[in-house]
């Protein structure tokens, strides 16, 4: 059953004689229990879409049913059933008051959902345990670490046990460790509670590692949709890297180029980079061919295209070059280096790197 069903959702901002078509006709269907990601660069329209789906912004066009309530006719019904964790970057922060105590935030939030005091206390205790906030009850929000504060913000979105929760850039600004820790919590939401999670991100590793299904959004339009694997399969071919004796490079290249499965080949310093179709099936064949010709193979590596390659193919731009300024060390580095550095620290489950 679909928990979100949106048709032609659009929003145009008019400010100072300038109009911005932030979202131009988005169709979405999200099934109950999915973790769905909205992947796109800064300014793509992710937040605007989320703000429409959560009743914060009226769409200029389109309609939607969210958690069983009509977005336009029954906004309060939508609010009752969803949780929302705002993005913690840009002009506004993630929704916690620096001078509140952790416990007060949780209890106040429960009161806003009209929960009784006992329920609220019980729920606050459960959430602090689940989200690793134990012992922080009496701490002022401003004394929390970035990761703790973000987890509190997520806890606030879950106080009323919503079936559907929207997380706007849940891990942006967090260090890698806090990020993967938060991923575990988000996975837990679905596996333990069956909560549907709709998140936005501009980190492709995040979309890849966390989401069952990804919508890629650019300039206010969805340009592709599917499981991370399916999206990556749309990019024709996998990349095979081979290293052979330096003297045998040219021979090996000629040999491999003759194979029907091999699309493209380039060589440098005894390493050959091949683009092949159906990498797993191609691998044994390539090994046999080289073996038969007596070429000694030192190593072989098969890698799949990343979501960035998908984005690149669809839009002609790389998501990585669009990283926001939340990581100054990234912004300072030249684009090429950034790209390779980012690929190294990417260890999402889906990006198989087989030896």
């Amino acid at each position, binding site marked *: 059953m679909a928990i979100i069903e949106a048709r032609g959702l659009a929003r145009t901002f008019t400010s100072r004689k300038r109009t911005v078509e932030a979202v131009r006709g988005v169709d979405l269907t999200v099934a109950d229990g999915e973790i769905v990601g909205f992947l796109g660069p800064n300014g793509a329209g992710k937040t605007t879409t989320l703000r429409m789906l959560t009743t*914060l912004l009226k769409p200029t066009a389109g309609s939607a049913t969210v958690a069983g309530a009509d977005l336009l006719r029954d906004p309060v019904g939508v609010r009752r059933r969803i949780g*929302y964790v705002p993005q*913690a970057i840009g002009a506004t922060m993630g929704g916690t008051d*620096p001078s509140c105590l952790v416990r007060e935030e949780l209890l106040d939030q429960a009161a*806003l959902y009209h929960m009784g005091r006992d329920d609220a206390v019980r729920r606050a205790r459960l959430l602090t345990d689940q989200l690793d906030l134990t012992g922080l009850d009496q701490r002022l929000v401003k004394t929390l670490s970035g990761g703790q504060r973000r987890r509190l913000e997520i806890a606030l979105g879950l106080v009323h046990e919503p079936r559907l929760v929207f997380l706007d850039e849940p891990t942006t600004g967090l260090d890698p460790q806090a990020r993967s820790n938060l991923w575990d919590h988000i996975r837990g939401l679905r596996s333990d509670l069956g909560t549907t999670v709709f998140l936005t991100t501009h980190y492709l590793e995040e979309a890849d590692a966390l989401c069952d299904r990804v919508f890629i959004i650019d300039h206010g339009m969805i340009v592709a949709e599917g499981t991370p694997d399916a999206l990556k399969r749309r990019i024709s071919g996998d990349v095979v890297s081979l290293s052979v004796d330096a003297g045998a490079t040219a021979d090996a290249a000629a040999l491999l180029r003759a194979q029907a499965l091999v699309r493209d080949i380039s060589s440098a310093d005894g390493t050959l980079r091949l683009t092949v179709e159906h990498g797993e099936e191609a691998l044994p064949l390539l090994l046999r061919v080289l073996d038969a010709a007596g070429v000694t193979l030192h190593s072989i590596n098969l890698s799949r295209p990343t979501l960035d390659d998908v984005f690149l193919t669809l839009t002609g731009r790389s998501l990585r070059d669009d990283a926001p300024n939340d990581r100054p060390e990234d912004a300072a580095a030249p684009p090429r280096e950034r790209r390779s550095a980012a690929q190294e620290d990417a260890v999402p489950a889906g990006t198989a790197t087989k030896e």
Partner: protein
Amino acid sequence: MSFLRDTMVIFRRQEKLALRNPAWVIIGLTQPILYLALFGPLLTRLPASSLGVPAGNAYKFFVPGLLIQLGLFGSTFVGFTIIADWRSGVIERFRVTPVSRLAIMAGRVLRDVVTLVVQALVLVLAGLAFGLRAQLGAILISFGFIVLVAVGLASVSYATGLLTKSEDAFAPMVNTIVVPLMLLSGIMLPMTLGPGWLQGIARISPFRYIIDAMREAFQGHYFNTIMVEGIAVAAGMAAMFLWLGSRVFLRENA
């Protein structure tokens, strides 16, 4: 009713935050107390007739003025706090819950009214210590006036804060409106001392009417046209600003 319950939730939250950091409440009081202590004694030397009060009781003139000053400054700057809350994302977070969006404003306004009444009480007690003679009725009536003033000004201040979303825009805007209004209200000295043109433009300040009515009450005159005018202006202003504030808080993307 859920609106009232929601208002109380917001009120208690704001109250808690204010009590955690009471500096502002105290700072708000120091100014009128200083005026009372350091400016009041000058007034007692002026001929009572020029203040329009019986001889020897300049405080019947001065305390109502200070009460309005307290209300004016205490309420018009509350918009700052909602800009901070908007920036921290708290406002958006509230707006996604089923809580009444009007209660998000009403709970705050209620907190501001309570704060102001407490401050006013301290100020009146200080006034009595300095030599103010006033009937209980007069004090209650003037509290009624400042509550109306606070409700209206706080509402419009929150609305302005939420619309501008920027302290840099909000502060100069409030200052350019409040200071002339205050000067034209005769808080320190009676407007009747001024030249004709000044008295003329002073008619545009609503606080002028409210202060005049409060001063009448302190003289023991509860039923006259000045009082009716004062009540009409105070109630009208509160109603209009409350309506304006509600409009902004109910807007889809305020």
